[in-house]
């Protein structure tokens, strides 16, 4: 009988380990799917897999705005302009709206800059509303789906919420007219009001020629352990501290300014790009929004990004194996950054560097002129193509109405 007991105990243990194992299995499977498919997905060629129709809008929605302030071409939200230009000459463009899978409305909502060059999206909702009104009255396609087969590029901090302050943005919520549309946005904060389900998260715009011109040979020895240049406190907008970057950047400064391994400062040197290329780790903490252009710079320059932004949704997360190239540190773990980074095994660091060196990662982060295969434009198209074919819910039955044209703040209803 003793044997039976033993058999039973063994079985019991097996059961326990199996159940935990199954959890484990599920998790590893998830990560592997991402890392395994990453290369292939980045290599995808969207040409021939979708057709995009571009609405012909009066130039006051795009070209004229740009003429007023050419700085829009260089700031980090310039993707909305370059994407338009790219689509105009792209083979995925169709002139026949009947055969189109996607409809694109070229409206530059972020191109309204303060004298300092920061975008203030106060007029954006009215502008967007006006554009939607225009396309819905001139073409039948908007009303067919109420925008479910339309995509918009809203790269600003809180994207379709159109406000630069997070609290206000959350209060406003996504512009009601865009509720059914697919959005292409830089902002990626999981479970956030301003990040729409099914949005395509893209990297911010970084000038490709400029970045190319600062490339130094890969033999240049990496001699900085951790590098960061930028604000720690935003005294102007956050005099109390603790709002900006949810306190994470301030914590970086307070804990590591005295660490010789941490080359961190607010001063922007002329050798900024070169210094990133001689750093092992580049800190990419959140600012007012979870993402920052540093993410793009780090990937381009082969510096392992240390992503400090809880619940961030990274650009092209379905195609780029962020877990393999970056290090993720929870905001509350910032005081232990030195321990975290020094306890990563050196082989792991070298592996991340090798993955980072893969040119297709870099390519997917850039919006080059002219476009090149596998660049960010193509990744956006890939994202759109993966949503095809449209489901049945996209097309409205006769009489269905989802959009409330009078919803939202009264100020937004004024004509543009």
């Amino acid at each position: 009988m003793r044997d039976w007991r033993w058999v039973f105990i063994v079985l019991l243990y097996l059961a326990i380990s199996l159940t935990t194992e199954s959890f484990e299995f599920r998790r590893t499977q998830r990560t592997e799917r991402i890392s395994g498919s990453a290369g292939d997905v980045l290599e995808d060629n969207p040409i021939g897999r979708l057709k995009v129709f571009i609405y012909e809008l009066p130039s006051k929605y795009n070209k004229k705005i740009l003429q007023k302030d050419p700085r829009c071409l260089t700031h980090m939200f310039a993707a909305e302009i370059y994407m338009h230009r790219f689509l105009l000459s792209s083979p995925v463009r169709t002139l026949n709206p009947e055969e189109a899978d996607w409809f694109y409305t070229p409206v530059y909502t972020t191109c309204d800059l303060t004298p300092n060059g920061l975008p203030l999206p106060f007029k954006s909702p009215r502008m967007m509303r006006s554009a939607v009104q225009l396309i819905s009255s001139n073409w039948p396609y908007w009303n067919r789906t109420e925008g479910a087969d339309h995509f918009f590029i809203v790269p600003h901090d809180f994207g379709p919420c159109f406000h630069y302050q997070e609290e206000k943005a959350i209060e406003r919520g996504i512009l009601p007219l865009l509720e059914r549309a697919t959005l292409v946005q830089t902002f990626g904060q999981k479970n956030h009001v301003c990040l729409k389900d099914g949005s395509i998260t893209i990297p911010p715009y970084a000038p490709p020629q400029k970045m190319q011109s600062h490339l130094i040979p890969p033999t240049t020895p990496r001699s900085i352990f951790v590098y960061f240049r930028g604000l720690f406190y935003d005294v102007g907008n956050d005099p109390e501290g603790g709002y900006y970057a949810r306190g994470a950047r301030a914590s970086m400064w307070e804990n590591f300014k005295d660490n010789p391994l941490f080359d961190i400062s607010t001063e922007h040197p002329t050798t900024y790009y070169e210094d990133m290329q001689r750093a092992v780790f580049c800190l990419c903490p959140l600012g007012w929004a979870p993402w920052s252009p540093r993410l793009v710079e780090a990937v381009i320059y082969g510096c392992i990004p240390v992503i400090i932004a809880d619940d961030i949704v990274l650009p092209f997360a379905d195609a780029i194996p962020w877990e393999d190239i970056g290090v993720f540190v929870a905001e509350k773990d910032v005081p232990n950054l030195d321990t975290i980074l020094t306890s990563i095994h050196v082989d792991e660091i070298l592996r991340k560097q090798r993955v980072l060196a893969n040119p297709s990662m870099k390519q997917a982060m850039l919006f080059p002129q002219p476009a090149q295969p596998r660049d960010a434009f193509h990744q956006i198209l890939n994202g759109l193509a993966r949503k095809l074919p449209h489901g049945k819910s996209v097309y409205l039955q006769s009489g269905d109405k989802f959009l409330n044209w009078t919803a939202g703040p009264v100020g937004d209803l004024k004509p543009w």
Partner: protein
Amino acid sequence: MASLERSKKKVQLWKKATVHFLLCFVMGFFTGFAPTSKASIFSSRVTMSLSSNYSPQPVKVFHQSRTQNFNRSLFDKTVSKAEHSHNSDKDQRVPEEDKRGSEELNLRGVLLRRLANTLKLVARPLLWIVVEQLSEDSEVSEILRKTGIMYRHVVFKENFTDVDSEMDHQRNIAVNHIEHHRLSGIVHFAGLSNVYDLHFFEEIRAVEAFGTWPIAKLFANKKKVTIEGPVCDFSEVVGWHLKKTNNVTDTRTTALPISSFAFNSSILWDPERWGRPSSVQDTSQNSLRFVRKEVLEEEAKVKGIPTQGCSKVLLWDLHIS
């Protein structure tokens, strides 16, 4: 009877079985509360080395070991900071203005490379702070970048006509950087014309508050070899062998060659630790002067290097033009 007993037994059996099932269920229920990650059950090491999986418990361990190590080992493995000012050879008279530019540029690069070759061999940790006037020319950045040394290139915008005041300004900028960042370590000002014996860097790590040593000044094509610095009894400084200047009052602070002393950087940002009121600290405009004064005034805290009576020259200042 038999059937009754049998059924009774059967009920008992079922009861037992149910109890077992329940027990198993509860057991499963509680195991479910345990963390799921494989690492935590089977090998607690894995996640630590990955570090993106970072559990709060080990931190505490680190923290404890830190407090134990902290007192002593920080000084055992002190960071030695070598500050270098790019045109320390400038104080030589070069008559023609335009010529001076190109020649110095070349020599500066050559000497910078030579110094970098030496610093590359110094045992880590070492942080090299290089101060330069802001310029379009990226020569210094390019040279530094190729060295592989952990350095910080600090630039300033001010223009100077007087070489000496520019040099002082540069050193002050470096010192202010250390003060601002509260970097802890032993600070040494390395001039471009300096040539080092590598033992020097081992020696100055032993400095607790201040350290000083003799420096040999050599001039090309001249017979003279000048040695300046402290006179010691073992490692205790009993006097100074310095060049006398006419300005008697200021001799003590200016005559001490800049490369002939080192100090613990905490004197800059933690004066209380060294038994001085914090008010002394507001010398940020001229921290260098403050440090120099300290070296000469706090002789009791000054350690002579090398410890055997400061008798070996480990550092030369070679003037080649």
